[in-house]
């Protein structure tokens, strides 16, 4: 490992240093505030390290990690998301008693895990990254440990994540048994001679493991409970960073391993995608809890993204990249409002808590409305272009049946998104009176949400920059 290798790993190294700094600071003097500041500074510094890493040129650092345009693009996305979640967390915990140093430490480790996942080109780094990510989330999900439902959700997540890891490991073992190597690239060379049954089964098991993490149907059972019981910023983090990182991994993996050569695996992915789109949207319809609704909505969105994954080529990953950015922004907008609504009290879970929000907090209602409309795929928000891009990718690969299901299920989806948005503007008595919930939104969080909303609308009106950027970033991995 030489100097330029270290430079290209700069963002990761900074994050590791920040995590250690949080630990050391806690030994010297326990202070939640110090931990949050170190975390914010670490994430910011890691972001600043990305240009340096980019300048060192696209390269493989050892056999485990590639720091190419693809990695850097997702690194920026993940770091920026983590930064927003961290800021929201500061608002969230401000009104609550107790020390939270370990919370910020876990945010950092989860981010490290996610970045390792998106840069991995080897099964070892893949498993390492996924495990760092999952273990951090075991604790974060059950973080409100005095509440029974948080423990229940934590247990569910722990058990199911454990099972999924077992699938993953077994899958990798089967692949290793046939290929005799653990690099993604090496599998291709053996697949080119016709993938054996054992290796195909291995990749299938790996997809099952990954399906759990992305909460695809039928591996989605943990999602609603976790979304309901975990602290709001953690939910935002799971919905974006955890799922997004794994999807990014799959984009690279599918392209490198030439997954598309296996008809049965592609067919299986197609079925999973259809099930996720339909089940996610149908189950969201009757939810009275905003968080469960968003959980099912996120399941559906992962189904949409699978369409782009299956489409492959150059268009598929580009569409998925664009959609992920839009989905991240919209999810952060919505959960930002949930966090600020829950400041100082409760979970802000029932849809009633958001009824008539527009007359109390017009700003928050606007952010939430635009986030929801983007998730629904309404023009002027980025969501419309994102969905169109996915359809474009699907159609370019001739996947018209999948595209038709995407269309049909997003019509169903409109039902509940619009219900929420219309609820924000109803004239009835608000669910919570202004005096009942303490704490102000906080200028910083308000500003961040404003920026996110602006970015979401900007992408809907002027997407050219991001589309071009993604095309450049992905060129190295997917050609074209």
């Amino acid at each position, binding site marked *: 490992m030489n100097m330029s290798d270290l430079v290209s790993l700069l963002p990761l190294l900074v994050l590791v240093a920040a995590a250690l700094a949080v630990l050391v600071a806690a030994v010297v003097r326990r202070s939640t505030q110090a931990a949050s500041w170190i975390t914010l500074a670490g994430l910011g510094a890691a972001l600043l390290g990305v240009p340096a890493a980019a300048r060192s040129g696209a390269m493989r650092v050892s056999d485990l990690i590639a720091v190419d345009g693809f990695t850097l693009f997702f690194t920026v996305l993940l770091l920026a998301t983590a930064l927003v979640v961290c800021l929201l967390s500061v608002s969230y915990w401000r009104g609550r008693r107790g020390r939270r140093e370990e919370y910020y430490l876990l945010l950092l480790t989860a981010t490290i895990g996610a970045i390792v996942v998106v840069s991995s080109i080897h099964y070892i780094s893949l498993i390492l990254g996924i495990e760092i990510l999952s273990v951090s989330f075991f604790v974060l999900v059950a973080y409100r440990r005095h509440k029974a439902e948080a423990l229940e959700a934590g247990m569910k997540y722990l058990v199911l994540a454990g099972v999924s890891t077992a699938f993953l490991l077994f899958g990798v073992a089967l692949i290793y048994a046939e290929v005799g190597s653990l690099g993604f690239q090496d599998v291709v060379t053996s697949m080119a001679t016709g993938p054996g049954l054992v290796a195909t089964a291995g990749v299938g098991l790996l997809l099952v493991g990954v399906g759990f993490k992305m909460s695809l149907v039928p591996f989605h059972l943990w999602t609603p409970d976790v979304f309901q019981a975990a602290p709001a910023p953690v939910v935002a983090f799971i919905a974006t960073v955890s799922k997004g990182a794994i999807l990014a991994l799959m984009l690279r993996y599918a392209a490198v391993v030439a997954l598309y050569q296996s008809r049965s695996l592609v067919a299986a992915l197609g079925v999973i995608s259809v099930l996720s789109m339909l089940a996610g949207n149908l189950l969201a319809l009757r939810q009275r809890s905003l968080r469960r609704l968003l959980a099912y909505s996120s399941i559906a969105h992962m189904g949409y993204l699978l369409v782009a994954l299956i489409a492959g080529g150059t268009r598929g990953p580009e569409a998925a990249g664009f959609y992920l950015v839009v989905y991240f922004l919209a999810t952060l907008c919505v959960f930002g409002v949930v966090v600020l609504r829950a400041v100082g009290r409760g979970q802000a879970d029932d849809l009633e808590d958001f009824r008539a929000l527009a007359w109390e907090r017009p700003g928050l209602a606007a952010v939430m409305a635009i986030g929801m409309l983007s998730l629904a795929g*309404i*023009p*002027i928000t980025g969501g*419309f272009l994102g969905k169109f891009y996915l359809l474009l990718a699907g159609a370019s690969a001739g996947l018209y049946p999948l595209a038709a299901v995407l*269309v049909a299920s997003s*019509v169903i989806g*409109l039902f509940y998104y619009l219900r929420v*948005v219309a609820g924000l*503007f109803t004239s009835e008595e608000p669910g919570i009176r202004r005096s009942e919930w303490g704490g102000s939104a906080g200028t910083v969080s308000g500003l961040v949400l404003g920026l996110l909303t602006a970015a979401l609308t900007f992408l809907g009106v002027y997407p050219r920059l991001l589309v*071009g950027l993604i095309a450049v970033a992905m060129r190295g991995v997917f050609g074209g």
Partner: protein
Amino acid sequence: MNLAFLVLVPLIAGLLAWLLGRKSDSAARLTAFVGLSIDLGIVISLWVRFPRAAAVGPGNRWLEQLDLPWIPQLGIRVHLALDGLSLLLVSLTAVLGLVALAVSWSSVQKRVGLFHFHLMFVLAGIMGVFLTLDLFLFALFWELMLVPTYFLIVIWGHENRQSAGIKFFLFTQAGGLLMILAILGLHFLHASQTGEYTFDALRLAATHLPGRWGMLLMLGFFLAFAVKLPAFPLHPWLPDAHTEAPTAGSIILAGLLLKTGAYGLIRFALPLFPQASARLAPWAMVLAVAGVIYGGLAAFGQRDIKRLIAYTSISHLGFVLLGVYAGSRAALEGAVLLMVCHGLTTGALFALAGGIQDRLGTRDMASLGGLWSVTPRLAAMTLFFALAAMGLPGLGNFAGEFLVLLGVFAVHLLPALLAATAMIVSVVYALTLVRRTMFGPSRPAAAVVDLGATEMIVMSGLILLILYLGLFPQTVIDRIRPFLQIIPGGIG
């Protein structure tokens, strides 16, 4: 840039109205008014510069164009273009927008800023639909119209607004998304033949459509437009949405949104898929005649004024559909004329129905009556527009319906005969509407205020327009004829 302003001005005015509306209601109303006045000014300046019909030919089709790259990586451009057809409908949008604004001036008192925000956004979307030639942009504006309309219905609407709003949204959204799939199909078919990735309708028109492709893609477009129109079996959203929407919403729905469906058929479905359209034409005419008769009979059975007017829309838009698919130029010209006149009359009728509801608190004809003696101006206006809607000769709607029938009669006898019977039904429901509300024993006990000065000005303006269209239809037809000639299905 005029064309971009037509769309952008309402958008900006809408945002400003929302922001200013948090401080003062009248500021929001004024902002919207100024925005629409600017649009109307642009429209008038375009009419003034409109060249004589002879000067416009196939080589010089567009009066004004704007073509800028938007997302070059995906072949998406901002391509706005204006010809006689667009100009006519854009003018209708500006006029009815002002009417909608005028009728909500005093009747909307809740959340005024937000109301005008939604109103302006719908109008901007409609303007965009009437102007764009890039199919992606068209789909975008198509969707953009829906959301604010939905909110106009569910926030400011009447008793059953929630279900009406959802029904409206699901029907139209399902159609719109099918159209997006068809657009994508056409896009890739074109790319596979020429290697050029484009969404420009003018370029896509050259696509060769092998086998069943033409029919499939055309149906995607047709269904989206037929839902909006609405063609007969796809109409169930319409009576509910029109009835439950606030007055301004009903005016925009009936006057403008329905026209986007007919416009889409004329602008895109016919020229992009000439052969498939020709094969669909007999079936479309069956649906059209069914709609004409069903709408008329159903209107006859209504007690709710707004519902009655809503059903008459189904009947009249059936005429439009008939004219579009008759394959005769006269019928097509009649259809376009009828679109504009129907927009004006139905807009006025919904404004008057809204006025009745504001004054008397009911839309039920059974509890109305005798308005002629109480509010003579309101009654006279209602009579005029009811007569216009039923097709009184000398007024615009008659000219439109007559041209449609004339055109259809020359090629298909039976549909023309069947559709003509509906003109009798229309007399019955129009006169019933007037008799039950305006004459008979006077029900309202309290003193009722007659139409005010603003309302009289608005209504008089609409009357003049309808009279003009009825007496001098040729001046309008001259201006749209060169453009309709280019449409393959329109040459009889």
